[in-house]
C-alpha cells in the first residue's frame, strides 16, 4: 500500500497543515515569550520541520502494525518505542541545530526549560498523526470491502448467462440429442433413459441460483448424471472412478462449481484422445475444509486446441469472491495426468 500522505497530492494538504502549525507556534513564541520574530520563526521551523519528516515516517510503524496482524502488546510496545525515540530525537536535534545557528543565550536557556512541554507537544503530534493513519487504514479497508462486495454482485449478475453458457455447453447438448436420435432406432429404452437423465441434468443446472450453496451429495448426483450421459456418447472410452468419504456428502459447496472442471476433464481427456480415459473424483473432509480432487488422464502427444483456461480461472475467481481467500484452487500436471483440487472452507457465509 502506498503512503496515504503522498498519494493523490495529499502531500499538499499535509504540508499546509504543518505550515499552519508552524505559524501558530512561531506566533506563540513571539507573542508570549517576547522573542525576536526571526528567532521565533527559526525555532518553529526547525522543531516542526523535524516533526513534518517524522510524521511521514510514522506511517511505516502503522502500516506494519495494523490491528488485525499484531498482538496488542506488540502494538503498544512498538508505538511507545517509536514515540520515545522520535520525540527525543526531535528535541535533541532541534536543540543542537538552533544552538549552533542562533547562539543567543536567552534562547538557549529557553530551549532547556522548554524540554517538558516540547515533549508533551511531541506526544500530541504523535498521537494525532497515528490516529489519522489508523483512520485512513480503516477507511481504505472499508472501501476495499465495499468494492469487493459490489464486484461480487456485478459478477454474479453478469455471469448468470455466461455461466449457463459455459456450464451447459451447446456442443454437449446437441451431441447428446444426436445420440438420443440414434438410440431411438437401435434401442428405444436406452433413448428414453438418456432423455430422462439429460432432463434431470438440465433441470438441476437451470433451476439453481448461482449464489446458492449445495451439499456435496446433490452436486455429486448431478455430476454423475453428466458423466452418465457422456458415457453413452463415448462408450468404453470414458471410465469414471469415485472415492467419496461419507462425511463429505453433507458438506457445502457453491452451486455447480465442479461442472466446469468435469467439462475440462472430458474436453482435454476424451475429446483429444483415442485411448480409454479415466476421470476420477475424490472428496474428503480435512478439519473444516472440504477437499475435492478431480483428475483426468490425457494424451501427452495431443497438440489439441488449447483451452484458454477460462473454466479454471472462473472457478478460482468465484471461490475467491465467495470466501475471500485468494488461493483455493490447486493444479498439478504430470506426464499424463492432470489434477485439480479445490479447498472449500466450511464456514457459515451470508451468501
Amino acid at each position, binding site marked *: 500500500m502506498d503512503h496515504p500522505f503522498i498519494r493523490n497530492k495529499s502531500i499538499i494538504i499535509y504540508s499546509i497543515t504543518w505550515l499552519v502549525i508552524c505559524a501558530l507556534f512561531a506566533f506563540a513564541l513571539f507573542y508570549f515569550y517576547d522573542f525576536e520574530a526571526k528567532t521565533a520563526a527559526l525555532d518553529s521551523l526547525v522543531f516542526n520541520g523535524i516533526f513534518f519528516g517524522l510524521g511521514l515516517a510514522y506511517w511505516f510503524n502503522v502500516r506494519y502494525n495494523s490491528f488485525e496482524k499484531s498482538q496488542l502488546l506488540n502494538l503498544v510496545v512498538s508505538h511507545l518505542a517509536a514515540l520515545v525515540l522520535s520525540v527525543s530525537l526531535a528535541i535533541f536535534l532541534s536543540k543542537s541545530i538552533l544552538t549552533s545557528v542562533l547562539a543567543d543565550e536567552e534562547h538557549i536557556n529557553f530551549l532547556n526549560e522548554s524540554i517538558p512541554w516540547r515533549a508533551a507537544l511531541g506526544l500530541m503530534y504523535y498521537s494525532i498523526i497515528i490516529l489519522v493513519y489508523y483512520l485512513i487504514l480503516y477507511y481504505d479497508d472499508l472501501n476495499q470491502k465495499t468494492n469487493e462486495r459490489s464486484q461480487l454482485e456485478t459478477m454474479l449478475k453478469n455471469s448468470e448467462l455466461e455461466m449457463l453458457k459455459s456450464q451447459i455447453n451447446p456442443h454437449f447438448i446437441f451431441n447428446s440429442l444426436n445420440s438420443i436420435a440414434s438410440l431411438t432406432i437401435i434401442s428405444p429404452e436406452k433413448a428414453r433413459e438418456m432423455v430422462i437423465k439429460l432432463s434431470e441434468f438440465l433441470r438441476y443446472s437451470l433451476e439453481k441460483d448461482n449464489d446458492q450453496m449445495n451439499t456435496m451429495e446433490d452436486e455429486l448426483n448431478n455430476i454423475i448424471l453428466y458423466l452418465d450421459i457422456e458415457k453413452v*456418447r463415448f462408450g468404453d472410452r470414458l471410465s469414471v472412478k469415485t472415492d467419496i468419504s461419507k462425511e463429505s456428502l453433507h458438506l457445502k459447496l457453491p452451486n455447480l462449481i465442479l461442472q466446469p472442471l468435469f467439462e475440462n476433464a472430458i474436453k482435454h481427456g476424451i475429446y483429444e484422445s*483415442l485411448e480409454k480415459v479415466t476421470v476420477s473424483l475424490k472428496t474428503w473432509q480435512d478439519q473444516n475444509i472440504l477437499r475435492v480432487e478431480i483428475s483426468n488422464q490425457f494424451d501427452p502427444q495431443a497438440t489439441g486446441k488449447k483451452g484458454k483456461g477460462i473454466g479454471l480461472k472462473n472457478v478460482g475467481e468465484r471461490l475467491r469472491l465467495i470466501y475471500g481467500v485468494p488461493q483455493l484452487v490447486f493444479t498439478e500436471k504430470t506426464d499424463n495426468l492432470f489434477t485439480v483440487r479445490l479447498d472449500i472452507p466450511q464456514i457459515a457465509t451470508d451468501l
Partner: protein
Amino acid sequence: MIRAIIIDDESLARDLIKAYLKKFDDIEVIAECSDGFQGLKAIQEHKPDMIFLDVQMPKITGFEMLELLEEPPVVIFSTAFDQYAIKAFELNATDYLLKPYAESRFSEAVEKAKTKIGTKGVAKAELETLQETRAESDESLDRIVVKTGNKIQILPLESISHFEAQDDYVAIHSEVGKFLKLLRMKYLENRLPLGEFVRIHRSHIVNVKQIEKLELYEKDSYLLSLKTGIKLPVSRSGHSKLKEVLKY
C-alpha cells in the same frame, strides 16, 4: 455402387448415419473411422466417392484432415455446434448437417452429393473455396497439420519460427524441421493470431517471439534476424506492420 466412409468419433452418431443410409440401395459403407488419422488412412486406401465427416474430432479436425488430401472425395459435413464452421458453410452454400438432423434433411444432402460424384474436380474446387472463406472468418489458427510421406505431424504455432512462400506451396520452418504445404500466404496472414505473427515481406511471415533483432541495412531497408540464425528481408509495408506489433 457409391462407396462411402463415415468419419465421426461417436459411435452412436455413426450408427445413425448407417441407419439413415439403409434406404439408399446404391450406397455402400466401406469403412467407419473414429478420428481424422484413421479417416485419412482409410480415404487413401479405399478412395471412396463420398465421405460423411464430423468437424470436431480428437487429434485433428475434419477440416485439417481434408487439407491433407490431394484428391478429396465429395464431403457431407456434420457438426453439433461450431459457429465458425457453420458460418463458412453458409457463405459457401456447402451442404452440411446440423446434429441432430431429420431423415428427410439427410436424404436431401445425400441426393445433392450424389450429383457431384463423377464430375472430376468439383469436390476439390468446392473445398478450396471453403478453405478460403474460413480464412476470412474470425477464428484464428493455433496449430498446423502437415504430412510427410505417411506421417502426420501437428505443429503447434509456438514451434514455428517462420513461413516462406515457395510457388504454390508454403515452407513451414519449425523446431522439428521444414515442411511444405499447399497453402496461400494470404490465408495464413488472415488466420494466424494477430500480434503473434507478422508478414514482413511478400514471401515471409515470422513468429514475433522468434525475432532476435532488426537492423538497418541500407537506407530504408531492414534485415530481420531470427533466433534460429536466419536473416530475412523486410519490405516497407512489412516494416510498418512490425512497428505496430512491436510498438517501438
